């Protein structure tokens, strides 16, 4: 499943790096603690969080993530968007809560890192 398909299925708004949406999503991870994302997420994962400051982009870029879904209508600020464009990390936003987003991702067949065989 690509990010583009996820955007369509979950009706996510694309806020940054629209040309990186063809990335194949390898799985999903949800947390608001950046170090946990660093530790547990895997390359190509989509990350679900309600953090919206610029450092989420650094984390996603360093961990090689496919993209970030920011939940609960949190509005990423201009610096976050700018950095995401620079680093080529798609930022997708939704009014849905993290729980709902993760549930729908699961239904669409996006596995959690615990179920990904490496």
């Amino acid at each position, binding site marked *: 499943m690509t990010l*583009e398909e996820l*955007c*369509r299925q979950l009706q996510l708004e*694309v806020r940054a790096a*629209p*040309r990186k*949406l*063809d990335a194949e999503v390898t799985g999903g991870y949800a947390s*608001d*603690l*950046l*170090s*946990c994302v*660093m*530790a547990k997420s895997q*390359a190509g994962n989509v990350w679900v*969080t309600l*953090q919206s*400051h*610029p*450092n*989420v*982009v*650094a*984390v996603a*870029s*360093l*961990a*090689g993530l496919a993209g970030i879904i920011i939940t609960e209508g949190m509005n990423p600020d201009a*610096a976050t968007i700018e950095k995401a464009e620079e*680093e080529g990390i798609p930022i997708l936003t939704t009014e849905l809560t993290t729980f709902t987003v993760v549930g729908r991702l699961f239904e669409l067949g996006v596995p959690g890192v615990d179920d990904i065989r490496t």
Partner: protein
Amino acid sequence: MPQVTRLHELVYELKIAEVMTREVVTVTPQTSMAELREILRNHRISGTPVMENGELVGIISIEDLIKALAAGEMDVVVGEKMTRDPVALCADDRIVLAVDRFTRSGFGRFPVVDERGKLVGILTQGDITRGLLKKLEVEYHEEEVRRYRASHIFEDVVSDRTSIFLHYEVVARDFDHAGEASSKIKRALDHLGFSPQIVRRAAIAAYETEMNIIIHTDEGGELMVDVRPEQIVIRATDTGPGIPDIERAMQPGFSTAPEWIREMGFGAGMGLSNIRRCTDEMRLESPLGTRTSLEAVIYLDRKDLRSERGRA
């Protein structure tokens, strides 16, 4: 949702002047259709602007010629068969505008004029395709060359011990630029041709180190990376306040970060254990609890360097 590719971007970036054909073959209204046939054939073109006294007055195409041929009107002059007052494109416009005009008009070519209305070129859809492909090829080639050169550095530079040393100043509490040093480190290792696994491990270790300096030091510190063919060493030093109980600091989940920092998602107490997990050796020292130095090492194998392929 439409997917935006580099090609889409180029359509907005490139100007018509960059892709148009500059050497324009022109005819006058007095040119006969028979002469036009020879001109089109000799230049292998399918249409041409019609000029009179330096002014663009029309455009004539191979379709007009075929119609004239079928009607046996080869002695008629171009002035009678041409399309008058043709729509011209501006050399300074982006090619997205031209693509739109081609799609909507169905025309095969447009004359291109400068800001004073003077004819400077002609544009066909073929010109656009060629221009885009050429630009893409140049960009791809530049990227290839850059990666290739960097990834061969350890083979090309001969010494008893070759090492690339990266040095970054990290400012305390500067959350606006947090992660920038690590991003640069990651990019450097990418360009040097290390495998994605190695780059990821080094990037995580560098990021956690950088964040520790930003969150916990009094006056910031230095982040250094020493890249050698056999190992990558990440080092950090600061001037205080030091860590009173290193063993406790190493425990996952133990954190001394203040609440406002935790609210941003930092200070989860995972940083140091993340560094240890990602690296093969880690030493953390804080003598007398005044300053801290950290050293983390990632061992490299021959297979970790992808220089023979030279590309990620």
